[in-house]
């Protein structure tokens, strides 16, 4: 049992290492991933300035742009990852080694978090410096807790998607595309979600990013504390409690189905 745990932790660390090493080896890639989001959020900030929106809106956009980097990572480097691993022949190797598939997903998630934190921090710092957005953080611990829960819930969702995408071919690409922009919109990445109609907000509440964004904005931009954001914290915790076991169940189920139907390693579908 202990030996198996150590084995799985080694595998998770190795997958994390591959992601960090691979993700930062080519500077062009790194720079592109930092600059493009800055351009996007600049466009929104200039628009809000033109419309003479409250200064907090610029802060909302910067936090939104920063957190969207994590969502993009969850979609493309978590959810659709098994599709790429299948195409390169790595998935077959993962599945003939005696490791838990969750260890691989955990490694991918942690590696993705490390990489994206580097990029997100750069986006945030650049945004704050260029647009002179003041941060009002009265409860740093609550801010960290909110960030931790948001990231955990997002990557747990990524793990679930990765499991569901296990047997997909090209559809994985389209499905990831399908989730990208609607989530940007519904979670209120570049505007306060309170501007959305109630029914749309209800739909948006099914996305962990919505709560995370709302909570982080309140703590970091508006200077609020635990008593103001506890609902967001509870919602994110509930997401984590549901999503992690669901991801494990989905992974086992899809692996078994793939082995029955012979689609686990079937490529170029």
């Amino acid at each position, binding site marked *: 049992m202990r030996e198996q745990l150590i084995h799985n932790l080694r*595998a998770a660390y190795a997958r994390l290492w591959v992601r960090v090493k691979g993700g930062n080896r080519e500077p062009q890639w790194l720079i592109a991933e930092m600059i493009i989001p800055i351009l996007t959020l600049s466009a929104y900030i200039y628009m809000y300035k033109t419309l003479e929106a409250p200064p907090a809106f610029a802060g909302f956009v910067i936090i939104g742009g920063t957190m969207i980097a994590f969502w993009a990572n969850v979609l493309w480097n978590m959810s659709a990852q098994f599709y790429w691993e299948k195409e390169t022949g790595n998935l077959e190797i993962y599945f003939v080694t005696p490791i838990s598939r969750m260890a691989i997903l955990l490694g991918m998630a942690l590696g993705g978090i490390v990489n994206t934190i580097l990029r997100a921090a750069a986006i945030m710092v650049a945004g704050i410096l260029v647009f002179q957005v003041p941060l009002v953080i009265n409860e740093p611990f609550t801010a960290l807790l909110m960030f931790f829960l948001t990231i955990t819930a997002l990557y747990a969702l990524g793990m679930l998607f990765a499991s569901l995408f296990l047997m997909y071919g090209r559809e994985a690409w389209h499905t990831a595309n399908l989730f990208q922009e609607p989530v940007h919109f519904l979670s209120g990445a570049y505007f306060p979600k309170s501007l959305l109609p109630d029914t749309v907000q209800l739909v948006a509440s099914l996305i962990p990013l919505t709560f995370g964004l709302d909570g982080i904005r309140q703590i970091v931009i508006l200077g609020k504390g635990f008593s103001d954001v506890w609902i967001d914290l509870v919602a994110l915790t509930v997401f984590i409690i549901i999503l992690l076991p669901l991801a494990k169940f989905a992974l086992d189920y899809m692996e078994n189905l793939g082995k029955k139907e012979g689609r686990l390693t079937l490529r170029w579908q």
Partner: protein
Amino acid sequence: MKALDQVSISIEQGEIFGLLGPNGAGKTTLIKILSTLLLPTSGEAYVGNFNVAKEPNKVRRVISLVSGGETPGYGILSVRENLWFFSQLYGLSSSKAKEEIARLTKDLDLGEYANTRMSKLSTGYKQRLNFARGLLNNPKILFLDEPTLGLDVLTSKKLRGYIVDWAKREMKGTVLLTTHYMAEADEMCDRVAIIDRGKILVCDSPLKLKEDLKENVIIKVEVSSVQADFGFMDTLEGVVGYSQTRSIQTDTTTLKVMVRDETVFSKITSKLQEQKLKILSESKAEPTLEDVYISLVGRGFEEDAGAASA
């Protein structure tokens, strides 16, 4: 359509066992079942005394799989980094991983490329890396699925030699090899099973299989024209089977025909002359594993490949 039908084989420890058959015969399906990548629809399979469907993780602890034409790993990482990554999937400690990587890169002539990115390696060196990856965990049972597919002669020879040496060293490993290269199976395997359309047709040592053909005569004939029609041989009495290789470049067809006795060959010659085909050369040939296949199904691998692509 059944990919595998009533397949029953038993492979001894330390044996190099070959599964020989044309494309689509069911070789890869069998290897995928044994390596826990596919579930059989019926029947049972055991690897290292473990049931592949019920105890997949126990099976995975003792096996490894190397497939030809595959380049598992990450192009952006070096040879050494890729091997380290895979060593961790097998749970090797840092010192053991370092030791194994050093040994395998040396043995497989990957030493000078150890710090080269995988994406910059040639096909041959990528496959060497794939072999090194497959041997990292010192598997008790190694599955090789068309391992020399698309490789040049020298690299293929090197890898074949290395595997035979690896398996026979202290009766170390059991190898299940799938291939459609006759010479590969002949050179490497202690026993060979010939598989066609999901069924095992025959299973024995290459030597014994070829010896069983000694009562037949095998003749190779090269005739002018790439459009020669050998359909008449399907009904000609005394013809066990035949295969043909057509060369557009030289506008010739090489016919390899197995007959019960040499008198049958004179009938074939006259039929060819009726078609105004010029016989450029003819010679007797020693039986090969392909001839074993021809004797069993009446056609060669080439014809199957043609049928599959048609």
